[in-house]
């Protein structure tokens, strides 16, 4: 008797007990099925030759197989690093640099006004007779004139160490919703200190080529902060003017 007959009979009984009501038929049927199993003569040469072919291809297909051969390793790394390198290169080409540019170079930054709620300050290519110090950019929205310092963020975040021997700041353009001034403060321990420079009163709209002359060059290591002030109506920068935004 085939050893699996009882096993299959038990299974069928568990699945459908009514199936085995006429148990003899089913037992004989299962026996016939088992004994009908065709003999399969497997050609062992075929099995071995196929194994060789499969393993040959497997040795090429394994993810790390390229590392076993130097030129393949290079190709493997090259194909994977090339896209990363391309993206990095693109990033450095397109990412605007805002520091230590040569005087004649125009900063690539441009920020586009968005509706009527944003002030912009854009760097400007300084005339050759001016000393370029720093460039500024912001796309921060204008704040209500009653906004508090905390709403604008900590001025200390905007501090910069001023390069020595700086006499002029050149801004590409300034776009305002209200008349105001761009003021350069010395910053000490997070507090706005001495005013080093004040722009002329800038009107509503866009003013190109804003120059701010320093009353004195910043001392080496001195921190400065650029602040946008909204004019209180008298046309002069005074302490009564409300600062609107600290520029980065």
């Amino acid at each position, binding site marked *: 008797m085939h050893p699996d007959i009882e096993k299959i009979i038990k299974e069928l009984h568990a699945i459908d007990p009514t*199936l085995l009501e006429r148990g003899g038929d089913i037992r004989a049927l299962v026996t016939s099925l088992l004994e009908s199993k065709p003999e399969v003569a497997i050609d062992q040469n075929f099995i071995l030759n196929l194994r060789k072919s499969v*393993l040959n291809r497997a040795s090429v297909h394994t993810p790390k197989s390229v590392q076993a051969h130097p030129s393949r390793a290079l190709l493997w790394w090259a194909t994977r690093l090339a896209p990363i390198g391309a993206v990095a290169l693109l990033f450095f080409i397109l990412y605007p640099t805002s520091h230590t540019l040569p005087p004649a170079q125009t900063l690539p930054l441009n920020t586009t006004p968005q509706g009527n709620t944003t002030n912009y300050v854009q760097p400007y290519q300084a005339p050759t007779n001016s000393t370029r110090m720093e460039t500024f950019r912001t796309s921060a929205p204008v704040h209500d004139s009653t906004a508090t310092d905390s709403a604008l963020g900590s001025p200390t975040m905007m501090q910069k160490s001023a390069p020595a021997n700086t006499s002029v700041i050149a801004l590409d353009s300034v776009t305002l919703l209200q008349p105001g001034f761009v003021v350069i403060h010395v910053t000490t321990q997070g507090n706005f200190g001495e005013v080093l420079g004040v722009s002329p009163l800038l009107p509503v709209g866009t003013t190109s080529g804003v120059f701010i002359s320093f009353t004195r060059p910043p001392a080496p290591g001195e921190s400065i902060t650029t602040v946008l002030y909204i004019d209180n109506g008298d046309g002069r920068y005074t302490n009564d003017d409300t600062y609107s935004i600290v520029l980065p």
Partner: protein
Amino acid sequence: MPTDTQDSDCIARFTSGDATAFGELYDRYAERIYRFVYYKVFNKEMAEDIVSDVFFKALEKIGSYNTQKGPFSAWLYRIARNTVIDKYRTKKPTVDIEDFFDLGEHERTEEKIDARDALEKISSYMASLTPVQREIVTLRVWEELSYKEIADIVGGTEGSVKMAFSRTIRDIRAKFGPFAPLVLAFLHQ
């Protein structure tokens, strides 16, 4: 019987760069897949051709095999099943077939049927079944796979496969009557 863990270990080693690990998988399943294919095509050359395709496809697609979707063995059997279907669709594009049995006697004149005797013995018997029934019977009775393994291959649950197997046996008895075993015994002679 190889375990899922053994197969998963081999796959992990292969994807980590050990090409010989695929050889272990091949050694485990080559003959099983050959028999599975042979029970469908009953032709040595065709079976060898299909089995070769199966393992090259498995090698190519092993990166997409997901252990969470089922055991490797079931995945490999499914590749084999689909490769048989594709092979016959290539040969007989107008015929919707699942396996060799669906071709009918007059369609098989081009192939050399090595197991003609064996085929004739069970032909009328198995030809009365649907392709899925036939597959379940051969996988359970001839390949000795568990119901769970069969379910992973043909789809469905273990319970549905058990019911299908039980109904198939009932259908055979119903079609051939109480003399079904005698018919088979006669065909064996």
